[in-house]
């Protein structure tokens, strides 16, 4: 059952991911991206990370994708015309990809510690929001404050960048 769910959501996520980079219209790509994010949230839930799954849907499938769609509509993009592809660029990109996938396959085939079954949780009904929150505020309080400043700086930066006249 778990394996079936894992493969269903993985296949959905990977197909949507392939769609993102193959569709010609940016709106279709954005729709593929939403599908990939929601399927990824489902994969987080299969890993007992409920809080991360909810945050994934809220932040990515909600906020980030709305921003993407908003900008795509704002820019009023037409479907991009076909341009001649550069053979050298495709060959270089393909080479990097094949190298990465070969390294991945090698690592996965060689390490035996990665093939064990999922260890049972001591308390399957534990409240993972409380655990993540406690860790965040007790052990990662300074990074948490810093990330708040980062968000503020990003907000101010976006306002400055979006003004009519950039000086």
């Amino acid at each position, binding site marked *: 059952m778990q*394996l079936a769910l*894992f493969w269903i959501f993985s296949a959905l996520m*990977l197909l949507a*991911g*392939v769609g*993102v*980079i193959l569709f010609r219209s*940016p709106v279709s*790509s*954005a729709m593929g*991206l939403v599908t*990939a994010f929601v399927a*990824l949230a489902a*994969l*987080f839930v*299969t*890993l007992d*990370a409920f*809080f*991360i799954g909810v*945050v994934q849907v809220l*932040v*990515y499938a909600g906020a*980030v994708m709305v*921003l*993407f769609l908003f900008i795509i509509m704002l*820019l009023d*993009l037409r479907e*991009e015309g076909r341009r001649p592809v550069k053979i050298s*660029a495709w060959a270089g*990109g393909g080479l990097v*990809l094949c190298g990465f996938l070969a390294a*991945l396959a090698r690592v*996965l085939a060689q*390490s035996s510690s*990665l*093939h*064990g079954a*999922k*260890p049972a*949780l*001591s308390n399957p009904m*534990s409240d*993972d929001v409380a*655990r*993540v929150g406690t*860790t*965040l505020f007790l*052990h*990662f309080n300074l*990074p948490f404050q810093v990330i708040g400043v*980062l*968000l503020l700086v*990003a*907000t101010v*930066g*976006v306002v400055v*960048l*979006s003004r009519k006249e*950039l000086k």
Partner: protein
Amino acid sequence: MPTLAHYLLVSGLLFAIGLGGVLLRRNILIIFMGLELMLNAANLSLVAFSRYFPASDGLPQANAQVFVFFIITVAAAEVAVGLAIIVALFRSKQTTHVEDLDSLKF
């Protein structure tokens, strides 16, 4: 029952798809979406490790999930700034095609 290798394989494939989008597509918006896919692939492997190597109390590692939380926050900030830059670029050049954005090219 899926093993850690399954999750790492899927995460690696998602990263490869994102990398392929960045390397092969010429539309700056699609390149940006490829970046998001790569960030999410990293998140998936972090969460998988947190589940398969539990903390001493037998529950998933909360540290890894806090790390994923930070990555999602930084990614949201990055998307906002990146899209603002794309809008500014589009206003001055009327294009999202990276080959038309070559004024910094040597």
